[in-house]
């Protein structure tokens, strides 16, 4: 029996200990992902966005805002091409996790330029028939007038 275990572990005590540690690490990691509802972030469900409490206010506001019935979080905040969507999800997911674990982000939270550009593109995506004459500039160019500059309540309701 002992021989069998040693053989499975590659023949030495040290490698057996390493295998055990790896198992513990993988197990704890997998459980953390499960406990932190890690897989929910692969969905488009707005509820996933309030897992970590930071977005509670934004979520509450969105429920009272005019776009509630028309768009969920990801409709406005993620690109709609298959590759860009997952890149943005991964990138934002990393920064969100880091920020909330280390508690080192600016409050009230602010959208970064990259995400503001995504947001602007999504306004145009739905409303382009209506606004094509005023959106002749690319959303990434900093001198663009962003829709939410004036229509700042459509996604998250009034600011108070």
């Amino acid at each position, binding site marked *: 029996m002992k021989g069998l275990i040693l053989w499975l572990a590659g023949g030495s005590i040290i490698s057996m200990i390493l295998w055990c540690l790896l198992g513990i690490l993988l197990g*704890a990691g997998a*459980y*953390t992902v499960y*406990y*932190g509802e890690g897989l929910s972030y692969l969905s488009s469900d707005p509820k996933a966005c309030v897992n*970590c*409490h*930071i977005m*509670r*206010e934004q979520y509450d506001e969105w429920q009272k805002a005019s776009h509630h019935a028309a768009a969920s979080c990801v409709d406005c905040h993620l690109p709609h091409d298959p590759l860009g969507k997952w890149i943005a999800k991964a990138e934002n997911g990393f920064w969100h996790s880091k920020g*909330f*674990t280390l*508690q080192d982000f*600016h*409050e*009230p939270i*602010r959208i970064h330029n990259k995400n503001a550009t995504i947001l602007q593109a999504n306004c145009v995506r739905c409303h382009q028939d209506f606004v094509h004459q005023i959106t002749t500039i690319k959303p990434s160019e900093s001198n663009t007038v962003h829709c939410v500059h004036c229509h*700042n309540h459509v996604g998250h309701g009034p*600011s*108070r």
Partner: protein
Amino acid sequence: MLLWQNIAERKQEALQNVFKVVEVTEDTIDPAIWGKNYPRQYDSYSRTVDVERTRHGGSEAFQKLDDDPRWRILFKGYAFGVDYREERGHAYMLKDQEETERVKNFKQPGACLHCHASVLTAYQQTGVKAGIPNDAAHRQQAIMKGFEEVCAMPYAEANKLVSHPVSCVDCHDPATMALRVTRPGFINGMQVLAQSSDPLPHLPSVERWRKGSRKTPYDPNLEASRQEMRSMACAQCHVEYYFKGEKKLLTYPWHKGLKADQIEEYYDEVGWKDWVHADSGAPVLKAQHPEFELWSQGIHARSGVSCADCHMPYKREGAIKVSDHHIRSPMLNISRACQTCHHYPEQEILSRVNAIQDRTKNLMLRAENATVDLIKALNEAGKQGKNDEQLKAVRALHRKAQWRLDFIAAENSTGFHAPQESARLLGEAIDFARQGQIKLLEVNKPTGKP
């Protein structure tokens, strides 16, 4: 493992943010006991011991009379001419009052404690001594009676009844933690204000009450929304007041409305003066920190923004959202206080506030100079032997100018709470003071033949 622990901690916080370990009642005055149940709020409340200077104010007790000696002249003949220090944070409100020369060297009534101490239990017990039954049903009645009794006491005697500065129980219901108002002076003040015809669009519950049957007096605890309460809790004390009659009954002069002119009109009607100015002989008024009154004239009030929104903004501790009880200048906390609504960099917001306050300050200095000039001119005319009859109209102008100047100077926002209203009042102060000087030229004109 650490990450898992971190997530677990946040989840627990989200489930339960109050853990009751002690019972608090109406008579639990000591905030430290409440702090056992609400450690986060208590921690930030305890931070009001900080000493911070802002551009025009803050919580460092510098002597304003040395900072700007004009005020020694403006307050001549009154206790404020002896000692006028910047107030420190909430934690010091009782201590500062016990220490000021205005209380040590002048006779002050117990009325002062209404706002400088956690005084409800003292009022209730004094009310019981005066014959109100000692039970829960008569509690409010006993408090109101005790308030009248304590107002009339000498300060030193009343001071023995209290032990803490304003604390949790003064704004929170111990059973539900709901915001409430408890100060008799404010409750009375709101009743007369509701009956006035001053438009109050920023206090919708008063407007609703006015349209109703008016059978029972307006009561904030029954009528006001939570958002209104987030201002009214502060308005219990951050207001203009006077001590009415022999009994020194603390009274908020809102019978005609909240504006400086309406308050002045009321004072003129009841014939009130705080003191007779030692140099000018005018029956002048002293304005006392009329923050609620000035804020009521401003754009933030009009937009439905409460005191707490800027002075006690929400903050997050882990997964828990708490009101920051470290009450202070929003300029020391710009991100949370302003950026929730104003999406500009902190430096930009600060610059905008500085622009408003610097303009107010410069106008205030002009109003100070103008009023001091009038005081000196009146003093000179008195020395020349001009009589009361001849000087009466000019002294009335001194009263008007000084009231408007002091209304903005004593108010703790250097104009920010309502910039245009502040400029209007200071402009009028300058005008009245200079009008007085012109009138004096008339009085001083040599009569008859040389």
